[in-house]
């Protein structure tokens, strides 16, 4: 039986070039489905990746209790002092706590593609920035100097928003700020932001106090004790979260929305492509009915005929799946876009066509091919031999 299967399959595939039009319908239909599915899901993957990379397990973020986001939160200088002396904090050589007291605000900066204002996070950072966030690297220009109006811009922000290259001047409230440099930070959310000295930002927006404190812990395991110490301290009313948890919560909603939209569109498209595949395979079977009947007449079984048609459909859809995934990867992988994140500010991220997405796309392609091939295959296997032969 296996021999029969191979013989018929080879014969089928050899005649493919004669049915190029009909066969290409399967390939192109499935290419379209997979390309759209993979591209849209690559958006979700990229966004999730950007936020998931923003946290380190041994870093924690402290906000005023009940504030949800840095933009809403308010911590006083006294709060920061209390937090600095909590147990579990990493210390520098001089015994100072590795803590960055930060002040988050939002600046209107025009987007390059639309020209309309977008909310870009302007983050005032403390003096211990380099120790707390060692992943931050200056790639152009130099670090900002404290006490003067200088800022560094994230590499993602530079790509999406106007006038942020090193050396440009940005007019923010009451004053001009010099963009002294551009930084990268492992592709995380901070690459969408502008960083400057916290007290300079505070005086510029006439706000005392801070939004949050970011601390480096001795180890990830030190978190529980650190959190307990802060939440039980009667002088404080704060929420303490591990950084990865804080950012994961921000990516959850949008990632889920994009995934739902992507999958729904792809399901509808897949239904359309399946009808196309059914059409093509029925045509293929009809065109070969004499050959199939002849084979059946000389003793070939029904099952090899059925399987051979399925294999042909599968081969074509596999080709479509690979093509679709390749198109998505070629056009969109690494494509930089930005959207309004959960924290009311722009998040710049790159579409990421991951290996898992390519596999997903090809699995979808094969499913469409199997469904679209099954009924025509069944018809081929059940072809009444005598009638088919007489038809010629």
């Amino acid at each position: 039986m296996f021999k029969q299967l191979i013989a018929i399959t080879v014969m089928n595939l050899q005649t493919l070039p004669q049915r190029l039009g009909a066969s290409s319908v399967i390939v192109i239909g499935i290419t379209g489905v997979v390309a759209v599915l993979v591209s849209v899901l690559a958006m979700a993957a990229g966004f999730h990746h950007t936020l998931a990379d923003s946290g380190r397990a041994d870093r924690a973020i402290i906000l005023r209790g009940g504030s949800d986001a840095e933009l809403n939160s308010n911590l006083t200088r006294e709060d920061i002092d209390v937090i600095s002396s909590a147990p579990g904090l990493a210390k520098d050589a001089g015994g100072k706590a590795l803590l960055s007291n930060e002040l988050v605000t939002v600046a209107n900066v025009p987007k390059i593609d639309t020209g309309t204002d977008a909310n870009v996070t302007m983050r005032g950072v403390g003096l211990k920035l380099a120790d707390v966030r060692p992943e931050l690297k200056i790639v152009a220009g130099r670090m900002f100097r404290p006490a003067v109006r200088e800022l560094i811009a994230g590499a993602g922000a530079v790509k999406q928003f106007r006038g942020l290259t090193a050396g440009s001047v940005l007019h923010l409230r009451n004053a001009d700020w010099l963009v002294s440099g551009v930084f990268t930070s492992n592709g995380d959310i901070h690459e969408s932001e502008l960083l400057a000295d916290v007290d300079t930002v505070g005086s510029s927006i006439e706000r005392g106090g801070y939004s949050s404190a970011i601390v480096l812990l001795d180890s990830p395991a030190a978190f529980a004790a650190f959190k307990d110490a802060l939440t039980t301290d009667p002088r404080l009313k704060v929420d303490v979260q591990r950084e990865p948890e804080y950012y994961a919560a921000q990516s959850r909603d949008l990632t889920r929305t994009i995934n739902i939209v992507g999958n729904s569109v792809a399901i509808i498209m897949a239904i359309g492509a399946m009808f196309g595949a059914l059409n093509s395979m029925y045509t293929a079977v009809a065109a070969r009915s004499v050959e199939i009947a002849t084979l059946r007449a000389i003793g070939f079984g029904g099952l090899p005929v059925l399987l051979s048609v399925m294999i042909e459909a599968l081969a074509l859809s596999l080709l479509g799946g690979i093509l679709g995934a390749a198109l998505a990867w070629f056009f969109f992988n690494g494509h930089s876009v930005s959207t309004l994140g959960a924290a009311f500010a722009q998040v710049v991220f790159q579409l990421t066509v991951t290996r898992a997405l390519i596999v997903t796309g090809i699995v979808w392609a094969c499913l469409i091919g199997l469904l679209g091939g099954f009924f025509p295959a069944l018809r081929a296997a059940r072809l009444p031999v005598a009638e088919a032969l007489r038809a010629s």
Partner: protein
Amino acid sequence: MKFFPLIWATLWRKKARTIFTLLSIVVAFLLFGVLETVDYAFAHPSTGTSGANLLITLNKYSITLSLPFSDEQEIRSVPGIADVTWLTWFGAYYQEPKQFVFALPIDIDTYLGIHKGDFVYDDTQMQAFRNTRDGAFVNTELMKKHGWKIGDRIPLHSTIWTQKNGSLDWNFLVVGVYDVTDPTQRNQQASTFLFHYDYFDEGRSFGKGNVGWYEERVEDAAQSAAISARIDALFANSSNETKTQPAKDFALAFIKQLGDIGFVLRAILGAVFFTLLFLTGNTMMQSVRERIPELAVLKTLGFTDANVLGLVLAESLLLCAIGALLGLAASYGALPIIKQGLQGVELSPLALLPGIGVAVLLALIVGLPPALRAKRLNIVDALAGKH
């Protein structure tokens, strides 16, 4: 029209093939309808009955920075302004963060002055609201969602504003309920909860005397640009410069911040129709190829070349039109489902109209090559099977 039975018959010559092709077209137009409505909704934000005359003034450099309350008097003095009101982002939720409530501290007289005719409410309830310091006037949808009744005491958690005692929880007494007059506003307003600015300003522990943004109603919408410029000139070079724009522009700019949704939707539709073109085109080609002897017979009977061309084109048109109509009808039926997923967005069936044009275009593109082939058919060759 007399050829209709002929066209209809040829269309169903191969039933299975026509049905599958038709279903593919239906699916494509279903997607077209859904995505176009979403795109249309994002491109045409609704700002209510008073929307065209509404301006909004924000801090020029950041939406998070406030404006001094004293600006109000100066803005009011600008000629052409009918009324000014001031608002502040309260950032509230009810019981848990997922249950967002758009709680808005308002000054009731000027707020109604701006939103003339936008709301339907009971006058005695409005009077009760005016007389209750911690009173709340709540959108009917929000009341239904949480099962609130008039007279209920509702605690809201603000993620921003602490009271003097340090608490983020604010208490309100629901004294009135309202509905919107413009149905396209129903979704956007569904979580609105109005309460008194005075109660808010007295209660908060910081930021007193500052407001989030101003809204102005202008007497003549055509003067919007000039009046906006005049307002901004008042505060130029102050420490709180302003940016004034029509509310519609503000809404559009905000949507643009989400990203180029239109591009994504159009790219998807491009892929859908590119594949559809191949599929339908292939079907039409096949169907004409199989019918060559029949077409030759028609020509022998006296059908002109143009007649034959018309017959094939009409068949293609009929196929696409049936598919498109079914697909667009399905997407119209799906509107309530999309609405649930896109809260705050109003969907207009107007967006479905271009679908008809697309269907005709599709029919011409896929119908023309086989139609031309049918037109050029040589009777003798075709009947002899040499083609």
